[in-house]
Structure formats: structure tokens, C-alpha cells
């Protein structure tokens, strides 16, 4: 992900709320502090298919926004 971001591709890490700090810290550690985090609700484990789709629906607008910003 770090390499993709450094090469100018649209890249992001999908992250649930309790892991936001870890995600931000790791992006700083790897030298890409502006690497976007696509935030979805916790938890990730033990979800029904409908709940997984719900997580995807939360992520999609954020991903589209990243692509739009990249194209501008």
C-alpha cells in the first residue's frame, strides 16, 4: 500500500474505528503520513453477509471521493 501510494496511485487502508490510531501511526512510520484511511464501523469479525455489504456501502463513497480528488 505504501509503495502504491508513493508511486502516485490511488491507495488507501480500510480501517475500523478502534484501529484508527494504529493506522495513522503506521502510515507515519512507513513515511506516508497522508496515506488515506477508509473508515468503516467495527467489528470486522463475525459479520453476516448483509453486515459485510453494509461495511462496503460505508467504504464506497470514501473510495469514490479519493478517486475524484486524484482525477482533479
Amino acid at each position, binding site marked *: 500500500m505504501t509503495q502504491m501510494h508513493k508511486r502516485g496511485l490511488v491507495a488507501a487502508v480500510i480501517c475500523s474505528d*478502534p484501529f484508527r*490510531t494504529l493506522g495513522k501511526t*503506521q502510515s507515519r*512510520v512507513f513515511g506516508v503520513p497522508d496515506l488515506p484511511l477508509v473508515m468503516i464501523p467495527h467489528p470486522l469479525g463475525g459479520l453476516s453477509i448483509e453486515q459485510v455489504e453494509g461495511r462496503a456501502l460505508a467504504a464506497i463513497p470514501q473510495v469514490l471521493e479519493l478517486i475524484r480528488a486524484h482525477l482533479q
Partner: protein
Amino acid sequence: MSGLAQLLKADGASLEADDDFEAINRLYLERGWGDGLPIVPPTEKRVGQMLAYCDRPWSEPIAKIPPCWGEATPLRLAANAVMAGCRPEYFPLLMLAIEAMCEERFNLYGIQATTHLCAPLAIVNGPVAQELGINSGHNAFGPGTHANATIGRAIRLALVNIGGAIPQKGDMATFGSPAKYSYLVAENEAASPWEPLHVERGFPAEASTVTVVGAECPHNVNDHESLTATGILTTFAGTMLNAGTNDTCYEAQPVAVFGPEHAKTVAHGGYTKADARRFLQEHAQLPLGKFSHENIERRLRVKLKERYATAGLDALVPMVQRAEDIIIVVIGGAGKHSAFIPTFGATQAVTRALTRRDGGFAHSVEEFRRG
């Protein structure tokens, strides 16, 4: 000016504080440097005494510790060793343990950052264990022995202060475990009927080693009744059964800790370590139907699909994939107890030996210090 004084002049390498134990401890707690317990202030003098037992350049990293990939220089490790209360002669073992757990196959990143409760367990073998007074007998996993308590604590402090495994920031353990304060023991080689762990792993008996395992806490195996090897091993295998373990889906290397009395009974029955491993692997198997419906359908039938994609509920699921992966050690004092230590799963044990500058095995810490 000494070499150490020069290093401490670098930006951020040291700080000025009043010579006041309480004030320094308040400062460390405020900055999140530590494990919550009081620390010994790492003064220049104390850090210098620790570094007398270091054979490397003090400011060159011997490893990088995840998740923040902080540089583990001897200088930083020495400061953490002082904070933990280590004696200077313990320092070579701290460096060895950190190097071992930073080998890629140990997967320290996963172990540090996971929601699982694992912690690196360090098992010391060879003459250095006795030289440093590392407890391998009664209460070896518990309190009361300076070397076990402080070297184990120094490992944790390094993982937090250098590696950034700060709870809820770099260490996402759902609830962690008491093993995250300190988790270091020696094998009770004198009480073992079998060859010690380091010899099994290819080192000469006179070498001193540290083996690190990404481990849960010990789980007790109480058997006061069995008089035979198969009796003890049957109870042990029964204790290993666990529908909630990480190990099922990995080529895991859990630890079977035999108390000396159980070990004697098993060995007296003609069982080598390899025989005992085979017995445990063959008997520690749960029928698929003992797992939850969701775990069967979403985990076992998917992750281990070659075996369980269409298997019936009576198909057996081994707690350990391969017999040879069970790590057997003898630890403890009197009593009819053993212990089973499951792991993080996605980790491989690593063993490193204490060596002199010429590459030969150091037979003691003093020999190591002299180079």
C-alpha cells in the same frame, strides 16, 4: 568525555531531571514510557554499567522492533534494562532475546499489534541459566526470582518503549495478559529425563540459548492419579483440546511443559520426546462437531478446505498439525502438574545462542563479556 557521554549528547538521547525517584517516575508515567510499574531511573552511570556487557557498537541497531520499527540500539536496550531493574550481567540475554524475536519468521509485528493476548515467551537453556540464577524450578513462571522478573520485564519495556507496542495505539490486544509484564523462564535441565530444548534444536549442551515463542499463558495439566506414561499423556492431550485456539488453522508450535514428576513417569514408560509428541498430536484432536456451526462453515471448511470442505461432523481436527512442531520442555519443581501453552498461531519459534566475538559459543556471560 566518555563514549557514552558523547552519545547522550545527541538530540533526544537523554533528558535532565532532578535526582528524585518519585518525580522521575511521575515523568515517565506522564510520557507513557513503561509498563505502569515504577522504574529504576536510567542514569548515565547505570546505563554505562549495563553496556560493559555489550560487544557491539552502542549506537548501531541490532534489530528494529515493530510495530513502529524503532531502532533497538544497545544504548536504548540498556536504558530499558536499567528501568526494569536488571543487573548488568543480564544484558547479553536481553540483546539475544530481542534479536531472536526480530527474526522475520517469529512475526513480532503480528504478535505486538494483534487483538490476541499473546506475548513473547523466552526459554533459556544452557549453563548461563544457572550462572544468572534464572529460575527453572518451583514457581518458575511466577514471581520471586530477580533474573526471571527483570529480564522478562526488560523485554516488555523494550517492546513498548522502542517498538511502540503501546496499549490501544500499537498493541491492540483485546485484554492482553499478565505474561505481558514479564515472561522468561529456564528449562529445568537437571530434572529432565530427556535432552534439553537447545540440544534438540541443534546446539551443543554447553551452549547457552534463548528460544522465543509467541505464546499464551500456561494452562495447567493436573494429574495426580496416572501412574503410566499413557495416563499422563492422555490427560495432557485432553487439556490441549480447545475449540477457541488460534493454533488449529496454522502450523503452530505450542509448548508442552512437563513438570519433572510427570516427565519422569512418561520417560520411565519408555517414551522419548518424539514419542510423547506423536501421542499428543494423535490424541489432541476434536471432532468437527465440537466447533460452532459458524466456525465450521466460515473458518475450518474455508481455511482447511482440503480436509474439511465436505467432511462430516465426526471428522477429527488436530490441535497441532505436525507432531514435530510441539515444543517439549521440562520446567518446575515438585508436584503432579504440567502445563500447556498455546500460541498466536502465525509465528515460528526462534532459538539464538550466546556467542563470543570469534563466533564460538560463550560458555558463560563472563566469557561473553571478555569476548
